[in-house]
C-alpha cells in the first residue's frame, strides 16, 4: 500500500546540511539550460546577476534544496549571468530577486526571494506550486462538508492546517502530499486537503533563525469559523493535521462530518508519514495467544506501542465493542489488540489489560484498569499540551460520547440555553377553568399550545414570549396553554361548559388566534417572533375592511402597519348583496394576517373599476412593496377557493426573491427553479449590477412567455439569506464565482444545471441555455441530494444486549416447553396461589 516508503525515508530532513558529496545543484550554461527546458522537466532555476552576502547565503540554501527536490523530480539549478549573458532572464531586472519554476518547457511561476529563502521555504513553496491542482483547498466549513460528502464511503481525507507558509511544517505536509498524490500505486485513497481558513502567515526571511511568526500576528489571524470535528485552536501556534475517516463511514453517527483523528505528535515528514500509516492499521486486531508471545508490530508500525485488552467468551461482543471504542481514542497513538482468553493465554485473570512499548527489549506490562482514560493517559503525548486543548478534543471527538450528545439542533440549542429559557409562567395561562372568560375579555387572544418537554415547543415559546413583550399594552392578549397540564382543554373536551371553539390539538406547538364568539384561526406561518408579530399585527384590522369613502380606500391602500408593508387586496363588487361578496369575505377570512383585504361596493366600486379599466366584479391587488395596484376582473361566480388562488396569483412577484420564510410557498408550486444567486453588494456598483441582473431575469420571464411557466424564475441574495451559500456549494461541489445561475428542482429529475459561469447573464442567452438543457445537450453540474433520510444512529439494540447478558430473558418459549395451562393468562409468580383476593 505504501510503495514510496523507502524513498520517503531517504529524504533529507529539514535543516540538516550536507556540505560533503556532489551537490545536486546544476550550474547551467545557456545551451544546456535550453536543452533541459525543452526536455519538459520541471526546473527550478535562479539566474544569478549579482553577488552579495544575502545572495550567497541564499545559494547555500538553494544547493541544499536541490538534494531534497530531486526526489520529487525537480531539477534545481542556477545560471550565472555574469559568465555568459543570457538575453532572456539574465537581462530582466526582476530576475534579480526571483527564482523561476519551469514546467513543460514554459515558465510556470516566479518566486520572490522574500518567499523562498531557505531550504524549507524552497521545498515547500515549490511543491506547493506543483501540487496546486492536486490538493483541495478548504476555505469554509461548507467546502469541507461538501468534500466529506463526496468522499464518504470511498476515501479518507488528510486535512492539514498550516499556520504559516514556508516553514518546516509546511514542507513536511507538502512532501507527504507529493508522495500521496504521485507515488501511490493504483488508487489514491486519500485526499490531502489544505485548510486556509485564513491567509496563512508567510514566513519572511528577515532573521532566518526566527522560526515562528510573532504571536501577535497569529492572534490577529482570527479564524472565521470553526469546523466541528477539527476546529483549529486559534491560539495554537502550530500547524495541525487531522485524518478524516470518511471511507468507512457512509453515514456518521452524530454529525454530518466524518469521524476524525487529530495528529498529536509534532509535525515532521516522518511523524506525519507514520501517522498516516497508522490510520491505515486495523482498528482492533484479535489474537488468541498470550500477549508475551504476540509478535511485535510489523513494519511499518514497528514504532507503535501495543495495547492488549482481554476478552472472555461470555462477553465477547461487548469486549469488542469496548476495545473498538478505546481503539478510536488511541488511534494514532497505539495499536489495540483484543486477546481472547483461551488455554494459550497465561495472563492471570486479575489483569484486564496490558501494553508493550516499542523500544527494544521492552516487556509486556500487565495492569488492571478501570477506565479507558487510564490507558489513554499512558500513551498521550508527554509533550505538554494546553489543558484547554485536551478538553476541546474531548468535546469534539465524535466517538467520545456519541450516544449522549444531542444530535438534534433544536433540542441542543434549547438544552444549551436551558437556564435562559423564558418562563412560561410569565405569560398569561389559559386553563380549562379560565378559557372562556379569558377569550371573552379581549378582541384577540393568541394562544400557544405547548408541551413543556418538547424542545420545539420551548424554542417557539421563546419567540412567542418575545412577541408578547413587544405587544405588551396592546389589545392583544398573548397566552399559553400547557397541554401537559390541561389535557382536556387541548383535547377540546368542554366537560359541560360552552363548546371549545377549536379541534383537538394533535400537533405541538400550535398557535391559535381566538376571538370572542368566533371559531379559532390556526396560525399557519413561520414559528418565529418576526413572522408571528407581523401576522398578529396584520390580523388586527377587520378582514375584509368595509370601505365606503374615497378617503377610506386611499388610506386602506397606503396606510402603514408599523414597519410592515403588507400586500393588499381589494374586492370590487356591484352591491353588498352581490353573491360574490360572501365568497370574497370567506376568502378574506383565510387571508387574514397575511394580506390586508378590503371590500368596496356600489358607485365607488364602479368608479375604481373604471379607472383601472376593468369590469365588476374585480380585484385590485397591491403586492407588498409595490407602488402600483394591479387590477383584474374576477370570474362572476367564483368560489372562495378560486378567489384565493386568483389573488395569490395576482400577488405573485414575477421574479421573487427566495427567503427562508417564503421558499415553501414557491416549492409547493412544483415548478423547476431557475435560481440566480447573487452576492452582497459591497458598493453602489455592485448594487447596480445586481439590479441589472434582476432586470435580465425579468426579461427571461417576459421573453419566454408561456414556455417559461414551467419554471419559477427567482433569485437568492446570499447577504440576506446566508444559508443559501451552502446550498450553492452543495449543487456545484464548490463555491463558484458570483453571480451564479442554476436550474434545479426540475420535476423530471435531480439534475442541477449551471449556466456557464463565464458567460454574461443575458435574457436571450439564458433562454438558449434553457432550451439546450431541455434538449438534453447540457450536462448537469451537480445533483440534488436524495430524499431518503435514514435513522440518524444505529439502533441501540436492547434485545441484542439482553441476548448477550441474559439469553433466556427475551427468548420465546419453545413450543414443546410446558406452557402453563390457559396459555394466555399471566404466569403465576409463586408456586402457591394466594389465599385471598
Amino acid at each position, binding site marked *: 500500500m505504501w510503495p514510496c516508503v523507502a524513498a520517503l525515508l531517504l529524504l533529507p530532513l529539514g535543516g540538516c546540511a550536507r556540505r560533503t558529496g556532489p551537490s545536486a545543484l546544476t550550474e547551467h550554461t545557456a545551451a544546456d539550460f535550453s536543452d533541459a527546458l525543452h526536455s519538459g522537466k520541471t526546473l527550478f532555476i535562479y539566474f544569478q546577476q549579482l553577488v552579495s552576502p544575502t545572495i550567497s547565503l541564499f545559494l547555500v540554501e538553494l544547493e541544499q534544496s536541490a538534494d531534497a527536490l530531486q526526489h520529487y523530480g525537480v531539477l534545481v539549478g542556477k545560471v550565472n549571468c555574469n559568465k555568459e549573458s543570457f538575453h532572456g532572464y539574465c537581462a530582466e531586472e526582476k530576475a534579480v530577486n526571483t527564482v523561476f519554476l519551469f514546467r513543460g518547457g514554459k515558465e510556470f511561476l516566479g518566486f520572490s526571494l522574500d518567499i523562498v529563502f531557505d531550504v524549507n521555504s524552497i521545498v515547500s513553496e515549490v511543491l506547493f506550486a506543483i501540487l*496546486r491542482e492536486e490538493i*483541495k*483547498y478548504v*476555505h469554509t466549513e*461548507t467546502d469541507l462538508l*461538501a468534500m466529506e460528502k*463526496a468522499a464518504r464511503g470511498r476515501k479518507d481525507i488528510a486535512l492539514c492546517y498550516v499556520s504559516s507558509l514556508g516553514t518546516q511544517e509546511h514542507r513536511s505536509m507538502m512532501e507527504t502530499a507529493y508522495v500521496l498524490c504521485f507515488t501511490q500505486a493504483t488508487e489514491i485513497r486519500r485526499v490531502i486537503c489544505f485548510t486556509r481558513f485564513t491567509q496563512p502567515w508567510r514566513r519572511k526571511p528577515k532573521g532566518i533563525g526566527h522560526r515562528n511568526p510573532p504571536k501577535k500576528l497569529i492572534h490577529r489571524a482570527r479564524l472565521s469559523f470553526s469546523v466541528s470535528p477539527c476546529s483549529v485552536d486559534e491560539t495554537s501556534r502550530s500547524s495541525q493535521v487531522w485524518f478524516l475517516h470518511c471511507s468507512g463511514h457512509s453515514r456518521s453517527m452524530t454529525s454530518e462530518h466524518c469521524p476524525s483523528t487529530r495528529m498529536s505528535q509534532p509535525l515532521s515528514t516522518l511523524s506525519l508519514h507514520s501517522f498516516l500509516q497508522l490510520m491505515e492499521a486495523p482498528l482492533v486486531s484479535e489474537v488468541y495467544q498470550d500477549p508475551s508471545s504476540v509478535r511485535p508490530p510489523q513494519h511499518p508500525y514497528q514504532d507503535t506501542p501495543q495495547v492488549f485488552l482481554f476478552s472472555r467468551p461470555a462477553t465477547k461482543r461487548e469486549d469488542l465493542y469496548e476495545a473498538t471504542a478505546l481503539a478510536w481514542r488511541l488511534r494514532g497513538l497505539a495499536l489495540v489488540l483484543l486477546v481472547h482468553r483461551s488455554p494459550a493465554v497465561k495472563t492471570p485473570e486479575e489483569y484486564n489489560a496490558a501494553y508493550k512499548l516499542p523500544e527494544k527489549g521492552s516487556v509486556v506490562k500487565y495492569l488492571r484498569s478501570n477506565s479507558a482514560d487510564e490507558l489513554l493517559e499512558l500513551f498521550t503525548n508527554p509533550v505538554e499540551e494546553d489543558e484547554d486543548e485536551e478538553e476541546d478534543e474531548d468535546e469534539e471527538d465524535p466517538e467520545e460520547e456519541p*450516544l*449522549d450528545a*444531542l444530535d438534534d*439542533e*433544536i*433540542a441542543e*440549542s*434549547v438544552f444549551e440555553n436551558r437556564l435562559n429559557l423564558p418562563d412560561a409562567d410569565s405569560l398569561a395561562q389559559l386553563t380549562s377553568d379560565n378559557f372562556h372568560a379569558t377569550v371573552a375579555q379581549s378582541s384577540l387572544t393568541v394562544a400557544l399550545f405547548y*408541551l413543556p*418537554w418538547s*424542545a*420545539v415547543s420551548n*424554542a417557539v415559546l421563546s*419567540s412567542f414570549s418575545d412577541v408578547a413583550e413587544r405587544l405588551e399594552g396592546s389589545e392583544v392578549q398573548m397566552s399559553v396553554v400547557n397541554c*401537559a*397540564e390541561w389535557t382536556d382543554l387541548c383535547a377540546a373536551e368542554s366537560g*359541560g361548559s360552552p363548546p371549545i371553539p377549536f379541534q383537538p390539538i*394533535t400537533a405541538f406547538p400550535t398557535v391559535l388566534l381566538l376571538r370572542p364568539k368566533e371559531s379559532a384561526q390556526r396560525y*399557519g406561518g*413561520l*414559528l*418565529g417572533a418576526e413572522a408571528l408579530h407581523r401576522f398578529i399585527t396584520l390580523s388586527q384590522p377587520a378582514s375584509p375592511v368595509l370601505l365606503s369613502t374615497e378617503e377610506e380606500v386611499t388610506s386602506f391602500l397606503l396606510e402603514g402597519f408599523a414597519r410592515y408593508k403588507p400586500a393588499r387586496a381589494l374586492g370590487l363588487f356591484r352591491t353588498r348583496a352581490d353573491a360574490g361578496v360572501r365568497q370574497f369575505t370567506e376568502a378574506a377570512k383565510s387571508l387574514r394576517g397575511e394580506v390586508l383585504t378590503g371590500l368596496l361596493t356600489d358607485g365607488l366600486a364602479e368608479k375604481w373599476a373604471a379607472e383601472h379599466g376593468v369590469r365588476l366584479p374585480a380585484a385590485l391587488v397591491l403586492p407588498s412593496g409595490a407602488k402600483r395596484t394591479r387590477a383584474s376582473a374576477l370570474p362572476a361566480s367564483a368560489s372562495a377557493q378560486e378567489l384565493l388562488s386568483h389573488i395569490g396569483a395576482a400577488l405573485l412577484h414575477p421574479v421573487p426573491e427566495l427567503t*427562508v*420564510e417564503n*421558499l415553501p410557498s414557491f*416549492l409547493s408550486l412544483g415548478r423547476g427553479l431557475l435560481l440566480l444567486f447573487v452576492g452582497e453588494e459591497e458598493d453602489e456598483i455592485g448594487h447596480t449590477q445586481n439590479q441589472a441582473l434582476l432586470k435580465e431575469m425579468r426579461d427571461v420571464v417576459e421573453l419566454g412567455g408561456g414556455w417559461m411557466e414551467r419554471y419559477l424564475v427567482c433569485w437568492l441574495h*446570499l447577504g440576506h439569506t*446566508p444559508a*443559501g451559500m451552502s*446550498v450553492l456549494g452543495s449543487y456545484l*461541489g464548490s463555491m*463558484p464565482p458570483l453571480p451564479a445561475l442554476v436550474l434545479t428542482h426540475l420535476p423530471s429529475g*435531480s439534475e442541477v444545471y449551471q449556466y456557464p459561469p463565464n458567460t454574461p447573464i443575458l435574457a436571450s442567452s439564458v433562454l438558449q441555455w434553457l432550451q439546450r438543457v431541455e434538449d438534453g445537450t447540457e450536462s448537469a453540474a451537480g445533483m*440534488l*441530494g436524495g430524499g431518503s*433520510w435514514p*435513522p440518524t444512529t444505529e439502533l441501540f439494540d*436492547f434485545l441484542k*444486549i439482553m441476548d448477550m447478558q441474559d439469553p433466556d*430473558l*427475551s427468548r*420465546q*418459549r*419453545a413450543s414443546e416447553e410446558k*406452557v402453563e395451562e*390457559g396459555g394466555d393468562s*399471566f404466569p*403465576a409468580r409463586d408456586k*402457591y*396461589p394466594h*389465599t*385471598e*383476593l
Partner: protein
Amino acid sequence: KSVHLPYLTLLILIGCTECFPDDRQQNGTGRYDYCVLGAGPSGLQMGYFLSRAKRDYVILERNSGPGSFFNKYPRHRKLISINKIYTGSQNREFNMRHDWNSLLSDRPNLLLKRVSRDFFPPADAFPVYLSMFEKELGLRVRYGVDIGRIGAVRSPEGRRYILTDQHELDYTCSVLLVASGLWVPQRVEFVGSDLVEGYESISTDPEDYKDQAVLILGKGNSAFETAQSISGRAKLVHMLSSNPVRLAWQTHYVGDLRAVNNDLLDTYQLKSLDGLAEIPLDKIAITQLKEQGWSRSGAKKKVNKPKFCVTLKKYLQHQEEKNGSDARRAETLEYQLDNFSMRKPYDRVISCLGFRFNFSIFQSSARPLNSDNAKGRLPRLTAWYEGDNTPGLFVLGTAAHSRDYRSSAGGFVHGFRYTVRSVHRVLEQRYHGNPWQSTELSTTQLQSWILKRINEASGPYQMFEVLGDVILLRGSRCEYVEEFTLQALPRFSSLSGHEVSKHGLIVLVMQYGKNKVDYLGRGRADTEWTTAWKSNFLHPVLYYYDKLPTDEEMKLRPPGWPLPRPKAIHHMVEDFLTEWGTPISHIQPLRRFLEHCVQTDLRAFYAESCFRLSLAHRKPPLFCQQGYLKRQGVARDSRLWQRDQDGGPMPTVRDEGTSGADPAFPAHLAQAGASISAGLKLDF
C-alpha cells in the same frame, strides 16, 4: 317507579323513542341489547359507557342501592384504596393515577373526593359515591331485581341470554355483562372447618376478643385488617396460611398485604406474642378440646369456652367417625411434635380467605368455565373478557381478575374502570361497527404524543402490563389507539376495527422489572438509559412489530413478558419522579428508537436548516416536510441565538448561515471565486 313517572310522561309527550326501555320497566320484563348484572363499580362504569353511546341497556341490581358489597365489607370499614386529593397537578388524567376509587366519566368533578377527603376513605363513602355517580349520569338501574337463573338460548338473531329474577320475570339480552363482583366467601375444606368463624360474620368489636388467643386463617388484607383490629385486646393473634406473607410494596400487587394493614408484622418481629406460620390449610385439622379430667381440679369456673387445637390431618385417629368433632389429647400436636408452633389451643379460629365468583346462578348453557388460576374461584375469560365458552357474555370488574390475577390491578376499581372501557370499545366495534377511538398524528408528532401518554395516561399506568397503547405506523402518518388489551393483540384488527399496515406497529406498555431485588436497598434503581432494560420500577417499554404477532407467538412469549419477542424493543429508564421528559436520558433515545421503527430521521430542524435541506435535496427530512414545507418552520429565536454567541464559541453549531449578517461573507466569496483557480474540485 314513582320517581320515573313524571319523566316518563314528559318523554311520551315529546315522542321520544327512548321511552321504550321505561315501557319495559313498567312491565318488569323485556328485551335489551345489553344487560349489566350488578350495580357495583364495574356495572355502573359500564352503564356510563353504554349510556354515553346511547345504547339500549339495563343494569339489574338485587339490592336497593348501588355497591351494596361495600355496605358490609371491608368489615372494619376502612377502604385501603388511596384517595389522593393533592398531586400538584391539574391534569385530570394524571390525577386519576392517584385516585383509586373514582369511576371514569366526562364530569370533571364526579370524583370520590367530593364524598370523602380521607386518604383511606371510610367504606360508607363508596356506596354514597356510587349512588351519586348513578344519579348524576342518569344511569338506568333497576334495583330489587334478584337474578336467580341465567340461561342462554339460540334465536334467529343469534345467541340470547335470559335472566330470570325472583318473580320469575325474564330479561332477554343479546349481550350479558356480568358485573356481579365477588361476595361468596371462599372456604377451604379440612377436618374441623365447621368450627371456624368466617370474616363475613365475626364481631368487629375488639372487646369481644379480650384476652383471647385467636388464630386467623389467611394472610391477605382482610386477615390482617381483622388482626389489626383485635390485636389491642386479644391475648395473641396467630395467622396461618400456605404461603408466607407477600407485601404489596414488594410485589407491586395491590392485592397483597398493604402497609396500611401490616401492624401485626411489627408485633410479630418485635416479639409481642403475635406470629405468622405456614401450613397448607387442607393439611390441617382443627379439633375442639373436650374438658377432660383436668378441669376437675379447678374450682367451678364459668363454663369454659370451647378451646380449639390445630393439628395435622395425618395424626388424626378414626378420622371417619371423628370428623370435625372433639379430639383426644393424643391427637394434638403438642403430644405428637415436641415444639410445634401451634401447640397451644386457641379461643377462636377465624377464616379470612377472600371470596369466590357465584357460578350457581348460571345454567350449563351460560355457565363460564372456572379459571385455571386463583384456585378456580373466578370465571375463565378471553383476553377481551368474554367467557371462554359463552360468546356474548362478558365479565367485568373484580370477577374478571383471572386475566391478571396477582399481577396487575384488574381486580380493583382503579384497574377495572379501564378494562371496562376497553370491553365497551370491543362491543362498539363488534356490534355497531365503530372502530376503537383513535387519534391520527403526523409521524413527527409521535414522539411528543408518546411522551404525553407516558407522563399522564392513567389506564396503562394502573393496568400495567395488561393495557397498552397501540400505534399503527402508516409512513408519514400514524394512528394512535389507546389502552388496548395486550393479550388480545393477535386479534387486534378484528377487535379494534383498525388495520395494520406494512409499516408495522408499536405497542407502548408500562411495566415493572421482573428481577427480585431488595426494594429498599442500594442499587435498586437504574438511572442510566443504556441499561434501562434492567429497570425495576414501573417504566415505559415500547415493542415494535412489523406485523401483528400470532396467537402462537403470544402463547410462547418469553416468561414474564406481557408480549412476544418483538423486532425491536425500547425500555425507557425508570424515573424517580415518574416523569419521562429529560432530553438526554428519555427523549433522545426514544426518538432514535422511533427512527428505526419508521425508518427515517425524526430530528427537528430550524427553518434555516430546512431551507438548506429543501433546496439541496429532492426532499428534506420528515420534520421539514411536515413543518417547514407547510410553511410552519421553526425560526431560531434571536434571543436563544444571542445567548449562544454570548456564551462563547459553540463547537457544535453547524449552521454557518444563521448569524444574520456575516461580515466575512464577501471576503469568503472573493476568496472562493478568485484565489486558487477554480477553487476546490471534487473530481475524486
